[in-house]
Each structure stands twice: as C-alpha cells, then as structure tokens.
C-alpha cells in the first residue's frame, strides 16, 4: 500500500457558508398573580410578537410558573442553558435581557485575548534558522 487515507471529520466554521444561531430555545416563565412579573407580563403582551417574528429560528415557549419570580431561560446548541431572573424589571429592560440571551453562544464567559482565531495556517510561515542567509561559524 503506497499511501493510506486518514479518516477525520471536517470542522465546522459557523458563519462561513451558513450561520446557525446558537440560541435554540427561549423559555419565558411568569406568574399571573405576583407583582414582580408585571414587567414580564407587559413584555409578553407587547414586545414578544415582534421578537418572535424577528427570530424565527428560536423556539419560544411561554409558560406560567406560579408563585415564582419571572425567568427567561435560554437553551443553547452546545447543551448548556442560561437563565436570567427578570423580577421587577421594566419591559424595556427585559428586551435587553432577551437580546443578551439571544446573542450568547452558550459557552461559559471567558476572556478572549486574541481578537481573531483561525483554523487556517499562517500564510507567512514560521521562521526557520536553516534557510536564507546562513552564517558559517
């Protein structure tokens, strides 16, 4: 056998070609009775239709959770979830929280030191001491 093939798997590059939004599901929980859900109820009545229309790729579930503070829970493609308590928040603040959950990747928050990461090799290559103007000792 002169040459064998090595089996690997192609690596995903989200956004090269198609972009898959990482937030796949948002759960909205509210309480019909409690006052801390007042802003949440107003958000669900007035802001949610526009949000759902703008983001059809997010599955949205609205369900009551009596005697609890209102919560928005985001489920992500990597299997993690992120929950934000929105008690006593105004609808406009909840809009911000929803956008935060929508744009999150689902990963744990970490500091990025390099602004760009790439799978491709550097075009310039690595410097080699054995090429170019060799100095004889």
């Amino acid at each position: 056998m002169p040459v064998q093939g090595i089996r690997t798997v192609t690596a995903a590059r989200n956004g090269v070609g198609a972009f898959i939004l990482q937030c796949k599901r948002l759960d909205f929980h509210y309480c019909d009775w409690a006052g801390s859900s007042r802003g949440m109820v107003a958000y669900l009545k007035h802001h949610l239709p526009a949000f759902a229309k703008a983001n059809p790729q997010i599955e949205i579930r609205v369900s009551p959770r009596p005697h609890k503070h209102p919560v928005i829970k985001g489920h992500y493609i990597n299997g993690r979830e992120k929950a934000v308590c929105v008690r006593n928040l105004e609808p406009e603040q909840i809009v911000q929280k929803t956008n935060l959950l929508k744009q999150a990747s689902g990963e744990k928050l970490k500091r990025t030191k390099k602004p760009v990461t790439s799978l491709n090799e550097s075009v310039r290559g690595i410097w080699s001491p054995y090429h170019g103007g060799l100095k004889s000792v």
Partner: protein
Amino acid sequence: MKRLQLQRWSSSVLSAQARTGGRLQHRLYNGIRHQSTASPAAPTANDQLIEEEPLAPSIHPPNSRQSKYQLPSPPVEAARESAKLAALHARLYLPSRLPLETLARSLVDASADPNPKFNNESLATLGHDLLTHYTSEYLICTYPRLPLTVIFAAMYAYVGPKTLAAMAREWGVESAAAPGGEVDPGYLQFKRIPPGADLKPVTGTARPHEDQAHWRKSITSSVVYDNEFGDPVKGPKNPSEQSKQDAQNIKGVTAEQANATFVRAVMGAIYLHAGRPAAKRFFEQHFLSRHLNISDLFNFSQPARDLSRLCARENFEQPVARIISETGRKSRHPVFVVGIYSGQDKLGEGAGASLLEARSRAAVAALKGWYLYSPLNVRVPSSMEEEGAAPWKPVHVDLGEVIV
C-alpha cells in the same frame, strides 16, 4: 438533456398514498456499482414487490391521546403544531417550499416507523446519493491527482456518518428518548440499540471470499465492492426476503447513524421540494464550507520508494536527496534539512533529526506537492445542469496514485 419532473417527484414523496417501494428497491441495490457485472434489479421484480407489499393503513387514526400512544411516529398534523420543528426549519434557512410535514418526516428514522410512507428512508437514499455525488465531483475536480484512499478519506470527512452526526448536533437537533405518536415531531426519532449490545461488523457483502479476513483487499476491489468511503456494504439479497427480514427484527440504530440519516433526508427533501439549485446551495453552505485540510489525510509508509516510482512513471529524472543545511551533527539535537531533487528541480524539502527522517519528510513533501495539485477555476460537471451554463471544457483528472 431531458429535464426532470421535480414537482411530480415531490408530490409522490409527500403524499401518504405514494408508493415508495420503487425507491426502497433502489436503496437495496445501491451497493452495486455500475462497473460491477452484477445485474441491477429487474423492473419486473420491482413491480412484484409493490404488489406484494401489504397495504399499510394509509391515514393515521384520529388525533386523540390514547390513539397517539399507539402510533409509531407522530401524526402528520402534529408537524404544524410543533414550535421546535418551525424553529429548526428557520434555523437551517430551508426554503419555504419545503413544508414542515416533510421536515417532520425526515426526522423519523426507519427503525422508529418501519412504514416507508412515514419514515425518511427514501429521502435519505436520495440525499445520500446527492451528497456523495456532489462531494466526489468536487474532490476529483479540485484535486485531480489524489490517491483513491485519500479520496475515500476525504469523502468520509465531508459526508461520512460521523460528520453528518456532528452537523445534526450543530444544527440543534435533539433526539427523542423513544419514538412514538405523542413525541414532539421536532425531535429526531429512532429506536436505540439496547445498552451492552455489540455492534457486529457488516457481513454478507458481495465480495467473494469474504470469510478470509486476512486476505489483502486491493483498492480496486474496494471500488467495486465497497461504498463511497471504502467501507464494506451489505450485498444485494432477494428483495422479498430482505423486506420480510426487516419487518421482523427492527433492530435499533446508533445515534450517529440516525443523525446521519436525518441530514441526508434533509438534503433529499430540499432537492425534491425546492429543486436542484437550492440543494446545491444547501450543500455548499453547510457541507463544503466546513474546514478540512486534505494534506493531513495522507499516511505514507515508504515515501521515498513511492517518489522514485512516481518519477519513473512520469518520466522524470530519478530523485536524489541532498543535504541543504545541517547543524549539530555530533550534538544531541542535530537538524538536517534535506531536499529531493530530480535533475535541477527541487521536488521537496524536509527537516529531521536524522538524515533518513529528513529524507523521508522531504519525499512526503514532494509527494504531497504532486498529489495536491489543484487547477485554477475549477468547474464541476454538475454545473452544466444549470440553465445557460458555459460550454464544458474537460477537466484534467490524473491517473491517481502510483502502483507499487
């Protein structure tokens, strides 16, 4: 070329009454390549199978809680109710001509619902053919000198089951714990292999002397007998026997297989409902856009020998290895930089801790330089299917690897 009647196909796939026996038949025989001498299934046999197929209940019973538990897979009406399914449709940017019902059907594996009118097997068959077709023509036209083993590996990397399963995971497709009528149609449904069961290797292939495991399998024979990735496939059987056997013991499938089948079925569904351009766009955006470094797929055992054979085949001068530079020959960490020259042309160069290592690295570099040649402005044959395509200029395809 006669244009295909896509609409007619899609209607036949969508309707529950459609007879998919013919496509199933195709699935059973798709292991046979056209180069092989085995005769493809006779059309009369096909018709006979359709007649023999027992008439399954064409319409699921009415939608009540008890009856839902009786169903093997969610009813067709449930697709419109599922928010998960609609979100998945939007997340993949699927064309609106592809209805949610078909997407729901592509999520039902044959192990969940053995009825071919409700599972994704026919769609997956079509999708698999499309995927392998587009990938292979892309690979061969882009890298015309690739050895066949590397082509197999690259095909596996692009559209192999492992990749497709990873894609389904990256699309956010979740698997149901068990298939059933009450399950949300947005979940991938398949019957799982019970834990502890051993996965037997494929037996019953068309390859002669299959039982002689220690016999050498040539690449040429794997072109004939194996599938697109160089893996053994089940050979053809008597169709009626096969379907009976399938119905009797529906074994589970692994999650990887089920996910891969789903992705193939989505591809087939797009082709049927939205047409070829949409399918090609989907292929480019989701499959070809993934990253694969093909130069990592090579595994040479004796690169220097291969290179000398290659030079002999191509009527180059015999390759000669020469030291370009070196340092610390007597030290603990010597470094030799060796170049391989054919006459005045440097074919490749490599650095190593010994002269032999450096020479073989240089030979590998030279071989990769040969095999990874890629012409500019690659066109694939399927681009001729579009309207108003430029006249076809034959692409250069090399002989492939050297025979040692």
